């Protein structure tokens, strides 16, 4: 092998022209990949991981420009290469797979054809052989019935299958380098693992070099040989994977590692390394200006869910032509929640865990009375709250007592409301506050409580960072002192370091205000941090209940087991050992 690395990024700087002037996206980033090596590029959103990859293969959009540095691939300079040459290279020598595979495939072209397009483009097949080759590729990525699937459209395939197709397209021409950009984001944990295993298997077969871009340290640890940590467009650390975890050098790396929840980490550990970015303009959420709710002496039942069922009608195409007949006897319905019952105590935190589509969000929406159940009851604070329709519930006094924190902090804030207006909303409508001054004082207090600096209160959602938006959402939900707070994946859209801070904030609030939580999440590791008890759901049914530690460490049910196992851990040493033993 010659001395220059296979892929070499040398002091690469990239600038973007935006409405606020030029933004430096990459600042002298240097990294390299050797033949056959799996390089992990980790970092939080905005750290420049993807930009690096895009720049390397010339996919940067028009607003971006590489202002400095070079990228060479197998000795060939890429930064100055002609677009035509790059085009020959892409897909043939360097391939890339993306996150959100369903969107990354042409929605109106059969997947087989999309594989063929690449094969034909790079003259890897003739018109006669392309079809067979494409089917062979589908087979290779372990798609069952490849002949039939050849004609499938992306929307007919599951997310995991789409990602396999993506892999098939990427590997169709046997490239020498594969760049995988967050290849498992948006997939369920079990699918994540299968996908990553497949990538590893196929690339190893060809001794391909792989660049794995991910925000998930666990995954990086599990699948990479060497890691590069990036932050704000800079490489802060680069080391072989076990060295990095054993002895992180850079504070940011340390913080990242600390903030990633593992099966045994505690909340305190997550934020052991302070986040300079968040703290820079954020007050510490330590003051508790609200009066603490006196704890009731004996535990009292707060919520009881009895035999809850929610059905959604399936729109079948097989309806009769006559509109009045299509609601006949054989109407089909999909049971999203299939007769679940559970209860929780006052002050307790309950985790609701499961993969997407298991019914956990539906359940939480019913409990918060945003949705009407098909049947079953929800007894809250000794009153059956399902007797009122969701539409009427808004005006009942119980409304105040059940609040919710939403999954996506961006989407849950009205883009036309400033943070202050958003937080004040429940105060106005539920508490009926009218006095401006009073509201302002209250909002200030709430902001302080959740650690949101007062100067941010007049900003609009798009002017706030993800963590700040999450805080606004939380402040809004606790504004009316609810008894029960339903947290619907409150951190899934956040970076790990922000997640850590938010989780801690939630924990603190719970302790200070004596609220009960229902924490809905797909991530057992996160749930464990906040909840005493966990309910695992699958296909609308409760699979397993128990204390968090029990479920995580000693799952009884097979499903729970796969769920737990699929979570990538980073215990580098054991991982290496496993790899060694596998070889």
């Amino acid at each position, binding site marked *: 092998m010659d001395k220059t690395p296979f892929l070499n990024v040398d002091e690469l700087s990239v600038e973007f022209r935006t409405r606020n002037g030029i933004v430096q996206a990459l600042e002298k980033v240097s990294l390299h990949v050797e033949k056959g090596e799996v390089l992990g590029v980790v970092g939080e959103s905005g750290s420049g991981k993807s930009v690096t990859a895009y720049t390397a293969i010339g996919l940067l959009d028009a607003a971006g420009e590489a202002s400095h540095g070079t990228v060479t691939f197998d000795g060939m300079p890429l930064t100055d290469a002609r677009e035509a040459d790059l085009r020959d290279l892409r897909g043939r020598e360097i391939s890339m797979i993306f996150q959100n595979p369903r969107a990354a495939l042409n929605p109106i072209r059969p997947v087989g054809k999309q594989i063929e397009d690449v094969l034909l483009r790079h003259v890897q097949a003739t018109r006669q052989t392309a079809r067979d080759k494409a089917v062979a590729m589908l087979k290779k990525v372990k798609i069952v019935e490849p002949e039939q699937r050849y004609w499938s459209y992306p929307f007919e395939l599951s997310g995991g299958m789409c990602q396999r197709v993506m892999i098939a397209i990427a590997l169709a021409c046997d490239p020498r380098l594969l760049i995988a950009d967050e290849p498992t984001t948006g997939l369920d944990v079990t699918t994540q693992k299968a996908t990553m295993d497949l990538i590893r298997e196929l690339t190893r077969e060809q001794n391909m070099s792989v660049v794995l871009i991910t925000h998930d340290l666990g995954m990086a640890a599990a699948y990479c040989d060497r890691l590069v940590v990036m932050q704000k467009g800079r490489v802060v650390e680069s080391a072989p994977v076990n060295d990095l975890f054993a002895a992180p050098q850079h504070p940011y790396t340390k913080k990242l590692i600390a903030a990633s929840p593992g099966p045994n980490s505690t909340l305190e550990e997550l934020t052991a390394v302070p986040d300079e970015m968040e703290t820079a303009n954020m007050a510490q959420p330590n003051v508790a200006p609200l009066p603490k709710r006196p704890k009731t002496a004996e535990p009292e039942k707060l919520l009881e869910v009895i035999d809850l069922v929610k059905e959604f009608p399936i729109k079948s195409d097989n309806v009769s032509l006559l509109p009045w007949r299509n609601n006949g006897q054989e109407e089909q319905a999909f049971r999203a929640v299939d007769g679940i019952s559970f209860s929780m105590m006052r002050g307790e935190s309950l985790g609701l865990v499961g993969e997407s589509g298991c019914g956990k969000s539906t359940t939480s929406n019913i409990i918060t009375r945003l949705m009407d159940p098909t049947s079953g009851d929800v007894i809250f604070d000794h009153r059956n709250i399902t007797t009122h329709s969701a539409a009427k519930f808004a005006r009942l006094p119980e409304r105040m007592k*059940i609040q919710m924190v939403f999954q996506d902090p961006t989407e849950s804030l009205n883009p036309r409301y400033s943070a202050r207006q*958003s937080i004040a909303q429940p105060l106005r409508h539920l508490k009926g506050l009218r006095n401006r001054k009073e509201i302002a004082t209250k909002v200030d207090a709430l902001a302080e409580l959740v650690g949101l600096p007062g100067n941010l209160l007049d900003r609009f959602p798009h002017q706030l960072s993800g963590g700040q938006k999450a805080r606004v959402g939380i402040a809004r939900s606790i504004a009316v002192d609810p008894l029960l707070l339903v947290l619907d994946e409150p951190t899934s859209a956040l970076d790990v370091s922000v997640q850590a801070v938010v989780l801690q904030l939630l924990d603190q609030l719970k302790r200070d205000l004596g609220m009960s939580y229902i924490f809905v999440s797909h991530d057992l590791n996160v749930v464990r941090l906040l909840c005493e008890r966990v309910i695992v759901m699958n296909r609308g049914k409760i699979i397993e209940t128990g204390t968090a530690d029990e479920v995580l460490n000693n799952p009884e049910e097979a499903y729970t087991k796969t769920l737990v196992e699929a979570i990538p851990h980073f215990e580098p040493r054991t991982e290496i050992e496993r790899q060694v033993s596998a070889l």
Partner: protein
Amino acid sequence: MTRFLKHFRYVMGENPVTVFAFSLFTVILFMGIFGHWIAPYDPLATNTAMTLKPPSWSHPFGTDHLGRDVFSRVIVATRLDLGIAVSAVALSFLIGSALGCSAGFWGGWPDRIIGRFSDTIMAFPLFVLAMGIVAAMGNSVENIIYATAIINLPFYIRVSRTEASVRRNAGYVNAARLSGCTDGRILATQVFPNILPPMMIQISLNMGWAILNAAGLSFIGLGVRPPDAEWGIMVAEGATYIVSGEWWLALFPGAALMTAVFCFNLLGDGLRDLVDPLRRT
């Protein structure tokens, strides 16, 4: 306010076409408000000694078949045309978006009824429907406005219905529910303001269309009553003089009309950016 001005300046800086459109709009607005004072002649005063005179220093746009000053008439007409466009669009915007929002937000039978209603109007040849309405109700300015508003309705219903149904389960809508807002309030404070940006494009297109529509009605004799000056009717009348060489009768009002419609159409993107909070810095 200063924030709005800053935002306004930003939106302007973003797009030269928008700057152009907004400056034009300012001019049109100015003419609409002060036109009667600017006009050098009485727009209604005839002078049979001075009929069909080509443009000159005293009559920059020439005179018409009754010796009226075309320049003054073009200027004075601005107010009426602007009035027709704005009120027709305002009417259909208010009614259409109210109907569409409710339909999209609640779904169910109101949605079906409103949907059918707008489908029915859409199935009409719109210009002929406008003709029919004006012919049936009589050709006055109000009826032209009503007719224009009615034929524009389905567009607003459609846009707002789609946008509202996308947002009916948005996070912030649910959040408002949790905050104890009733559906009506949610519709008014959460859903409606957020569908404004896409509606702005529709509004700007329709403003232009309203004027063209009035002009078309004038062409077949169902427009504004004489002697009021209105661009459409001036173009329509002037159009018959083109062949006989009196081009100025149609050209100048036509140019004014085109400028206005052009300006309204181009205004859309800028308007959308102005009301879109996401574009705010």
